[in-house]
């Protein structure tokens, strides 16, 4: 394992310190937690507080999306481990400006349970808390017995759209309704070229042969649905676009937002090349692409690979909200 770090067990603490010290105008650490909150007087323009979080190792998610027009606070758990309820509770309190708090949770049972416990704690303080569970990863379709699909890079689009609505004054109920409308329209699928190494573990969560890729790997290295030889960017795009087409029942004339997300160790050059192939294939389907974004948003430590998110834009408002300028580190 070759990482720039000190003690592996201190990595999250030091990361959060480095982050808030680098962006003091944007972020402040909530005392005695590894959660950060927008460093502004939130009571000046009180809005519904938006919080998110999860295990660390997905930077810039989620702390990098705290700021004007996106999240109010974010909670950084241990690497790939959901944060604890006390930390989430602290973020809820810090984000509350009297208009309630909305939690954006990625669908992992740990996250769901810890955020739920924090919500129970907040209820005792009479802070109204609602939430949405994002489950955009179509990679692994489970039977009806499962808790469903994973939450991955599409979560960032949820931050963006809800953030824009919250900034413009939307009430907690309206944000909840909107969240329920947008999440089913966001679908993501990824391909990994290498595994990620958790600092405390010291070796990659899985290994791929030098010429092998795995489709559908989760952002914590959870197994995907198929391994095969690495082919061209065009063929990777064919596979991922093909899966998303099916999942969206994609039809000519529909409007989409497209996000290519680097998983951590894949250079932007490759991401742009991949996006070029994706846009070719979407053009061939005669869908209208209204919004595009390429870069590292929801990473998986040092994993190489990309994910592709297609969001069906049913309301033209959603496009406007995606395009609104924000002040954050990572958007």
């Amino acid at each position, binding site marked *: 394992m070759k990482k720039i770090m000190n003690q592996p067990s201190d990595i999250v603490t030091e990361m959060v310190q480095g982050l808030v010290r680098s962006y003091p105008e944007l972020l402040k650490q909530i005392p005695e937690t590894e959660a950060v909150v927008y460093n502004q007087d939130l009571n000046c323009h009180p809005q519904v507080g938006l919080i998110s979080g999860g295990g660390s190792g997905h930077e810039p998610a989620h702390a990098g999306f705290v700021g004007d027009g996106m999240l109010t606070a974010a909670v950084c758990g241990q690497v790939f481990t959901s944060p604890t309820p006390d930390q989430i509770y602290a973020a809820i309190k810090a984000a509350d400006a009297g208009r309630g708090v909305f939690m954006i949770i990625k669908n992992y049972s*740990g996250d769901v*349970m810890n955020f739920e416990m924090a919500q129970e704690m907040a209820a005792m303080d009479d802070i109204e808390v609602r939430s949405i569970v994002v489950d955009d990863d179509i990679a692994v379709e489970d039977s009806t017995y499962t808790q469903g699909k994973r939450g991955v890079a599409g979560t960032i689009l949820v931050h963006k759209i809800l953030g824009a609505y919250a900034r413009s004054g939307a009430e907690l109920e309206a944000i909840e309704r909107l969240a329920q409308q947008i999440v089913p329209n966001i679908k993501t699928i990824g391909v990994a070229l290498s595994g990620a190494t*958790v600092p405390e573990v010291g070796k990659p969560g899985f290994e791929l042969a030098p010429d092998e890729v795995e489709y559908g790997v989760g952002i914590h290295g959870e197994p995907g649905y198929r391994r095969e030889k690495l082919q061209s960017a065009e063929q990777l795009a064919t596979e991922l676009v093909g899966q998303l087409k099916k999942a969206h029942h994609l039809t000519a004339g529909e409007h989409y937002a497209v996000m290519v997300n680097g998983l951590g160790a894949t250079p932007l050059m490759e991401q742009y090349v991949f996006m070029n192939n994706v846009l070719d294939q979407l053009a061939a389907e005669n869908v209208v692409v209204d919004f595009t974004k390429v870069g590292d948003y929801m990473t998986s430590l040092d994993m190489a690979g990309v994910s592709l998110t297609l969001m069906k834009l049913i309301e033209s408002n959603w496009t406007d909200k995606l395009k609104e300028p924000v002040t954050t580190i990572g958007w």
Partner: protein
Amino acid sequence: MLTVENTLKWLALFNQAIQTNQAQLSALDTPIGDGDHGHNMARGMTAVTEVLADKAPTDVPAILKLTAMNLITKVGGAAGPLYGTAFLEMAKKSAETLEIAPLLSAGLAGVEKRGHATVGEKTLIDVWQPVIAQLEQGPLTAEAVTTAVEATAALRATKGRASYLGERSIGHVDPGAASSGYLFTTMLEAGINHD
């Protein structure tokens, strides 16, 4: 029957077992999960051990509650809320009774409610449930615990991160089942059993 002495002994032995088997528990979590279960439990039990030494609680409910709070605030992941809720429900129940079977039973009910899971979904419930069933009828044996742990290998995961592997989880012991295995074998070592 829980006493201050045997409860503290139990938690000390459980801590030892977790620390000793930390790497193995994370290794079990690697093929079917995200490889952190050992680290998560170790972080939590280190905190529990410290706070019990520090606060020196003098009654069973206090011990269980401190344990619960530290598991909840230090473990994270899925295991934190689940073990934390289990101990919290046991703490509540211990105001009524100190008999082990009803206590564990309350803990299990909390786990099921928190995780929306039930028997057969390849989780720690698949160890808690047979252990409690046996304790309700008579003494529990270490063999029975081990059997329950190993039986999870045959199950297909449908809850938690492991569920994302589906069929491919079959053949691997569930990490949460394994850590619960240590919970119950150390309970026996501490002299706690059917009363």
